[in-house]
């Protein structure tokens, strides 16, 4: 017992030392709200408490979480959920400290690409043991696959957001005499060159490896038919099939159709809203930014799938990012936590769940077919004119996010950035292949891919 405590103290102290070593990573961003939450103080006698940490999102989303938890707490007296909304910049530090001290919350939100890693390291429990099969039956297969390992489901998907949509300025297209969005990459590059004038750039997208690493997964699938590592993670698969993607970035950067430096991070829709871009590859979440912050621009913005490199409209051009709910492996009440998840996300109250998608102006989509069908129908009459197209033309072909270690994605993205900055495409791809093989060897990844 004493040695366990001693060991725990050591782990906490070591984590603190490392945090200090990496220098001042604990500071909060000024203006970020303090933790807030829901659940109230009126815990029914004998009720089991479940701690739930939610990454703080937009106000409308936070309000929905609070309402959902309050509604669940009011609906029964056996389980009482305490919701904590943690600001984004404090999440890593708070969660790491809580895990080190053995005080991690019972359940929390986690992004798709973190699920398999968390499952592999035993951080989260399989929900298959706690949530019945029929609750999962409504889930889209491709989404379910991204949270499953060895036949068990480790997270309950809440929403999906396609990572890449082609947003374009219909007024600028019309003024330039261009009819409709590009359907091929040749057209896209041609239009981008034509539409670049003064301070308006023809095409904007991720231009730094950190952003390219995840935002181009869909295009990697599209151009090569696979991601740059074999299915069993035993070797790099970075061949010439990726060349058209790298070449496109290189050509548009050299031609000045793309700015010499990204006008904002990939997730930021402001440059498009502010009229600095004629075309912008961005996520489906751009819709709510345009509607809320740039309402005067909505009638001048169109949305389309990104062009397919080989002309196949059914080929994926996006991946499905988004958020899931998981149960911590050290939770003493996994059954109760899973009950909360199944009740709120699994069909217990779909009307309330639909309010989430309505509140976020249908810029996100449900991985559950029944909910998604209902939201697509509702979106048709909504203020979001792009929701139906995204739901019908992009979501169905989109792929799950990559689940291999982030370094692999970064290695490929570095090749893309190298090519954009002028390195020969073949050289950049060869560098990526070497680096990915080194990472496979160093991390002993071969054979560890989830099945």
């Amino acid at each position, binding site marked *: 017992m004493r040695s366990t405590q001693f060991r725990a103290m050591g782990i906490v102290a070591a984590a603190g*030392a*490392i945090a200090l*070593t990496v220098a001042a990573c604990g500071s909060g961003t000024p203006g970020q709200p303090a933790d807030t939450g829901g659940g109230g103080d009126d815990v029914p006698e004998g009720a089991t408490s479940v701690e739930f940490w939610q990454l703080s999102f937009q106000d409308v989303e936070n309000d929905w979480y609070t309402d959902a938890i309050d509604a669940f707490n009011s609906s029964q007296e056996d389980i009482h959920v305490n919701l904590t909304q943690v600001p984004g910049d404090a999440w890593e530090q708070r969660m790491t400290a809580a895990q080190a001290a053995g005080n991690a919350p019972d359940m929390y939100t986690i992004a798709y690409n973190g699920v398999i890693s968390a499952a592999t390291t035993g951080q989260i429990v399989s929900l298959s043991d706690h949530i019945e099969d029929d609750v999962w039956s409504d889930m889209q297969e491709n989404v379910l696959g991204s949270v499953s390992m060895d036949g068990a489901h480790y997270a309950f998907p809440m929403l999906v957001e396609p990572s890449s949509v082609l947003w374009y300025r219909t007024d600028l297209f019309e003024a330039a005499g261009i009819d409709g969005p590009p359907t091929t990459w040749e057209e896209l590059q041609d239009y981008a060159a034509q539409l670049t004038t003064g301070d308006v750039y023809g095409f904007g997208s991720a231009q730094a490896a*950190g952003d390219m690493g995840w935002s181009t997964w869909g295009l990697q699938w599209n151009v090569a038919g696979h991601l740059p590592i074999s299915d069993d993670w035993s070797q790099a698969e970075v061949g010439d099939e990726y060349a058209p993607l790298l070449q496109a970035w290189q050509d548009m950067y050299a031609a000045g159709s793309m*700015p010499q430096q990204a006008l904002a991070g990939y997730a930021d829709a402001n440059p498009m809203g502010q009229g600095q871009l004629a075309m912008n590859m961005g996520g489906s979440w751009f819709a709510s930014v345009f509607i809320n912050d740039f309402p005067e621009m909505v009638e001048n913005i169109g949305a389309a799938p990104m062009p397919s490199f080989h002309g196949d409209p059914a080929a994926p051009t996006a991946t499905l990012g988004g958020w899931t709910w998981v149960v911590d*492996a050290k939770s003493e009440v996994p059954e109760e936590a899973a009950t909360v998840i199944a009740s709120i996300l699994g069909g217990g109250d779909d009307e309330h769940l639909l309010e989430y998608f309505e509140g976020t102006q249908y810029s996100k989509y449900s991985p559950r077919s029944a909910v998604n069908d209902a939201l697509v129908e509702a979106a048709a009459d909504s203020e979001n004119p792009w929701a139906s197209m995204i739901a019908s033309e992009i979501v169905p072909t989109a792929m799950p996010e990559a689940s291999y*270690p982030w370094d692999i994605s970064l290695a490929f993205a*570095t090749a893309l*950035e190298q090519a954009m900055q002028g390195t020969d495409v073949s050289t950049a791809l060869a560098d990526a292949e070497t680096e990915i093989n080194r990472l496979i060897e160093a991390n002993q990844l071969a054979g560890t891919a989830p099945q």
Partner: protein
Amino acid sequence: MSARSNVMAYAMLAPIVVLLTIFVVWPVVYAIYLSFYNWSFYTPPIPVGWRNYVNVLGDRTFIESVGRGLLFAIIVVPTQLVIGFLFASLVKTVSGKIATILKVSIYIPTIISGVIASIVFVLIYNYQGGILNAFVGIFGVEKQAWLGNADTALAALTVPAVWLGLGIGTLIMLAGLVDIPTSYYEAADLDGASWFQKTFFITIPLMRNIFLYLLIAGFTGAVQQFELPLVMTDGGPLERTLLPNLYIFQHFRNDTYVGYSIAAAILLMLVLGSISAGIFRVLNSEKAVDG
């Protein structure tokens, strides 16, 4: 009497020794232990021997980041020392009120958060609508991607780094300058010494320990610079601003197991310790000879 004195001495030392042991020695020892494991909070540590160290040393990104950190420090620290010394000399020569204004002015960057300074400089360097591009535009120079161009990004980061560290260095140097007995300068004046002669034969030798402190503190601080590349460039473009601490942080944040980032942190500690020891050896610290 002697034994009682010893007991009192140990008693007075005990708090700091205990605190250092708990918060410095033990975490470092435990971190070294963990660096030989693949480790997470949820699974028993898996011993991997030297593999984490071999992997870190085999990663050209880490080696390059350390080299880049040294280059960054070589640009930043001497620049800070020279500007700080000139500024401190200026402050010493002017009257009280103006000296106060100058001291406050030079110290202001020190109390500004590195994150805020980073955001301010991002606005200055912005490719589209940045103040610097507007300025160079007046002279007909095309706008530049200061932070987006692999050739200029690191240099662009050195400017806020110098600015942020200038205040404290200048004030420490000013304290050193004021501490030098005026009789030395009066004697030099009687011998007809010029300003340069007084500076190089009186001021700088008597400030050796201050330079030594600023050099070591500045060098280790600059190599470990973290906020500026994190906020301004996230290590890009093409890893050209990826300094070692940011490299370690990125791995700490993204890796499945943390043994690798701990090994990298320990290797960086060894590098910085060696460099500090080297500086001590070259610039031998001496007790001040004047009273």
